[in-house]
């Protein structure tokens, strides 16, 4: 009875908080000063046609580094908690494996390269069109997921993935330090020539950081999925 009372009390309090949030909400017709600076000056300062990736990787580069660090800790924690006991995939330990149907296998063979290429495209064109390292890495990892779901006996080279992922992370920080030395601050991408707005080789170090981010996120998410599968 007391427990129920507490639940109702908590619900009412949450309702009050949200009601105040919704009540005080008004649609803004102009950008806030900081956002306006990003939108108007961002393309000129960074040379990135896609403002969002410019903000994520340069202005808010430190936050992105924090996100990647969180992801790294998740992967490390999962590695500790879901350690592989025996050798080999124990997928077949509980239930006998049913072979995937012809349709699924063929579909995977057709789709897998396409998804990988699309992921690489999203990673590399982050400074030009929607996307960037994080999104592209997630797309690559979903391709790995498709492979693992349709062919459960596939084994990932976890050691190789971990090394790749660590190297990408170290290089990411190194480029950040280069920005600190050669340009305005940590993770400043302007130490490389800006190039022409909209060209593939442009926007300073943003594409490089984006590619490193994509490799890191893709490898990390693949490792996380592989830890859960078993």
């Amino acid at each position: 009875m007391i427990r129920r009372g507490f639940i109702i009390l908590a619900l009412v309090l949450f309702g009050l908080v949200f009601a105040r949030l919704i009540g005080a909400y008004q649609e803004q017709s102009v950008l806030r000063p900081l956002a306006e600076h990003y939108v108007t000056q961002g393309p000129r300062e960074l040379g990135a046609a896609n403002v969002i990736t410019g903000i994520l990787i340069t202005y808010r580069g430190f936050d992105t580094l924090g996100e990647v660090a969180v992801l790294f800790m998740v992967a490390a924690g999962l590695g500790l908690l879901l350690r592989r006991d025996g050798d080999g995939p124990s997928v077949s330990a509980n239930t006998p494996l049913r072979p995937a149907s012809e349709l699924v296998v063929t579909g995977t063979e057709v789709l897998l390269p396409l998804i990988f290429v699309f992921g690489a495209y999203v990673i590399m064109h982050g400074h030009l069109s929607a996307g960037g390292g994080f999104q592209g890495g997630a797309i690559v990892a979903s391709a790995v997921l498709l492979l693992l779901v349709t062919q459960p006996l596939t084994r990932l080279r976890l050691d190789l993935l971990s090394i790749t992922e660590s190297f990408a992370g170290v290089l990411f920080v190194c480029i950040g330090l280069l920005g600190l030395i050669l340009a305005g601050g940590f993770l400043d991408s302007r130490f490389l020539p800006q190039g022409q707005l909209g060209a593939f080789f442009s926007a300073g170090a943003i594409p490089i950081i984006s590619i490193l981010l994509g490799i890191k996120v893709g490898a990390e998410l693949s490792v996380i999925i592989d830890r859960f599968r078993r």
Partner: protein
Amino acid sequence: MLDLLILLICTGILASGVLAVCLKDLMAAMISAGLTSLFAAVSYVLLAAPDVAMAEAAIGSGLATFIFLYAIRRTSGGVSTMETGEE
């Protein structure tokens, strides 16, 4: 027209979210939770935020759903503990 579409998508988010909580069959609840993310991704596209939509579609409705799938298989095999009466 766009407002109506966004309203429809938001109804979809709410409905699939409520279904994900209420459904007894864990597998169906998992699919419903993935559907919530998918509807959210569509709404982001409609609101002109394709960058966020990509991440939401890939992680929210792709990876997270399948992590639930693996978790369900490892725990009770898709049978709700409420039905069987075990712990």
